């Protein structure tokens, strides 16, 4: 398998006016396409910070994070998120005023994909995540949490990237929906060749992952490789 992301001695320090906090300490790891990764750890251990760096929303204070060998510091990180990496969240974070269909079309419109094409693709993705067509015109507030997370996954893959980052994607779901989502994520990794990186407390999610990392006080270690 080919490495897509590699972290080399990644350290991240939150700096406020009054204090400095080391959130990540010399993290070394790599992520490959076609695999699902789980990062576990307690709240405040640095998981979300690491995910934020992987999403290109920030850069390491020290060390280096590369995407296919290219230093993330030097790359256009907005384009990276737009075209290569997507994030899904525990709270789904769909646009509440847009319909299900519009939410999924959103990243494609950002890529200037013509509306008709985007709509067709959106239908395809929504179908793929198993969302019935009757919900396409509904707004997120009108559908269940599991359905919302499926929409979020559809939106994440709609951009056609290769890295899927998930922050506690099943945290707000019941066990039945949790199972569906985990299956979807696995499918994306194993069938669609995504590098799926999931930050989770959930043992079932961790169990489904190919590789499990543990994060303790900003230090990353391999739990299961």
């Amino acid at each position, binding site marked *: 398998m080919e490495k897509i992301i590699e972290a080399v001695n990644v350290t991240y320090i939150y700096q406020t006016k009054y204090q400095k906090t080391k959130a990540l300490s010399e993290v070394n790891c790599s992520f490959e396409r076609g695999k699902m990764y789980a990062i576990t750890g307690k709240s405040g251990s640095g998981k*979300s910070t690491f995910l934020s760096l992987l*999403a290109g*929303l*920030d850069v390491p204070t020290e060390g280096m994070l590369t995407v296919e060998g290219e230093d993330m510091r030097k790359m256009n990180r907005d*384009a990276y*998120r737009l075209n290569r990496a*997507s994030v899904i969240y525990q709270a789904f974070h769909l*646009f509440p*005023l847009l319909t299900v269909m519009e939410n999924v079309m*959103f990243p494609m419109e950002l890529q200037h994909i013509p509306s008709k094409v985007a709509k067709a693709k959106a239908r395809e993705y929504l179908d793929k995540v198993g969302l019935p067509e009757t919900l396409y015109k509904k707004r997120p507030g009108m559908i269940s949490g599991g359905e919302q997370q499926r929409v979020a996954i559809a939106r994440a893959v709609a951009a056609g990237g290769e890295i899927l980052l998930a922050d506690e994607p099943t945290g707000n779901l019941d066990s039945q929906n949790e199972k569906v989502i985990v299956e979807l994520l696995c499918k994306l990794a194993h069938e669609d060749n995504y590098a799926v990186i999931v930050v989770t407390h959930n043992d079932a999610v961790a169990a489904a992952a190919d590789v499990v990392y543990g994060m303790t006080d900003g230090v990353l270690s391999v739990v299961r490789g």
Partner: protein
Amino acid sequence: MMIRNSLTRLVRTPVKTALFFLLLSFTVALFCAGGSLWKLSGDNLRRFEEIFVTIGTVEQTPERTQQEAVWYADEEDFRYFNRAVYGETISSDVLDFVGAGYLSGPEQRAYYEALPFNYKLKEDNEGMPQAMIIEASPLEDCVPAGPVKIEVKRVLCSTYPVNDSPIYLCDHNTRYPQTLYADRTYLMALADGWTHEWEEKGAAAIFEYVPMDGPRSTQTDADGKRLSTDLEGTWIEELTPGFYETERGKAWLTLCQDFELQHWFQTFPVTATQDLNLIMAFYTKQAYLSQGAFFSKEDYEQGNKVCLISDRFARRNKLQVGDSLHLALRYANYAASPGRGGGEARLNAEGGIYEPFEESDYRIKGIYEVGVGGDGDWGYTIDRNEVFIPKTSIKNSDEHNIALHGPMKGYTTAFRIPNGTESMENFKKLWEAQGVDHVEITFYDGGYNKLEGGLKNMQTMSAVLLAVGAVSVVCMVIFFCHLFIAKQKKWTAIERCLGMTKGQCASALLAGVLTVALAGSAAGGFAGQLIAGSAAAQMTSTETFDTRFSNGEVQFNRERSEEEAVDGKAEGSGMLQSAYLTETDWRTAGLCSSLVFLFTVGMALSGIYRNLREEPLALLSESD
């Protein structure tokens, strides 16, 4: 796409969007109405500031009045008149005190008698009083307590030829006249008198001549102190051999010379002033410009040789604006106005005539007309041939040519101060602190105070409206920026995570807010403009003005004929209203609206900046 999404967000929150639009429009309307009215009232204040002039006239009040008995020969009785008795003449220097804030003056104006040269000072068919200096003898010894016949032996000078002899003489106002002897010859100064109703004697009415002043002098020094002289103004002298060789005899001959020089009583007065507004007829616009221009600031400052002449004088002498007028100023009278008439004696203290102390050509800068209906004290009226010049155009001192000086009068002494109650009250306070008695100051502001009060009320109200509008706008914009931007930070974070650049996120947020803000500002601005226009029209239709002595009123009557000008006085209030600016300036509303829009942009950008500073993933990791 950004704009479309942004607008979609607006459309899908219609209540919030409509509320923002309506409330913003309402508050912007208040703000713009306040702004427009505030500017309008400011413009009106400035406009009226230019139109109106505030002057004070100064008058030394008499210490007492004294009853004076004057004998009337035809009635064989006294008539009684009240005469003002002044104490020491108070100099106009008392008006020079710190803080007075004069715009012009104070001045105690002199008018100068100018040599008439060949200028035509009256119409051909216009008469003159008959006056003469003659040698005459009574036909018989007599006391001229009533008309007595005298034979004219020689005419030394006379307004008209004296063809009749004998003529009647009556020392009309002297209770016990001196006896005249038939065998003696007398030198006498006579004026045509009146028809003597000799009722008691049942005689027919007799046309008689009465005494007028002989050689006399009222010359003063620069401080107004009368110079000593031997000339007493006796109207009659007994002619003795060699009389004309004596000092008194020479004075009589000089007086004749002066009468001839001055074409008798044809006056050609020249008034020198620091500001034409200080002359009541110009202040009230009873005298107004028909051609040319008034004196400019430079004329006053640089003492340019320019003058204003009356239209009748111009017509009679075929003079036009730009022509030259030769002025030779002989003597000054600081006690009276030309309209009120002399009082000065024609000879100097030494019995000589006053030689011109200033002689030069003046360029006619303007021609004025005097409207009818100039009521009030005739001291304030303009004499028919009166010429006006800037005071500073007189380069030589008149100190040796002052024929009469006297107490300050309203028609000789005035000053100008800035318009407004504050200025007037300040002046009064400082003046009272001077502790000068027997000087009365009367202010004329043409109703400016009342007008100023109304406009200042309007300005205060509009300032309140402006402030309330501004505060409302600020609150409204902050509130809606909070709703549309600060509360949307998670939306922004999602967009960021989906790969939108910070610029795109900012555009998406701005587009919606600014669309509503632009529409609200424009609608509010338009509504504010309408409200301001309506309020301004309402105010001017209910405001009334005291147009007595109003310069504003006549300013707009200037082009009218004299007759119309009189009518215009009656409807002065309406005329002044036409001076009111009621058109609100759309630029003010535009400026206010733009300010609101820019403020919204500023607030929105500030909110967006704060949104974009948030760490997106941290924000989105927070549970809702």
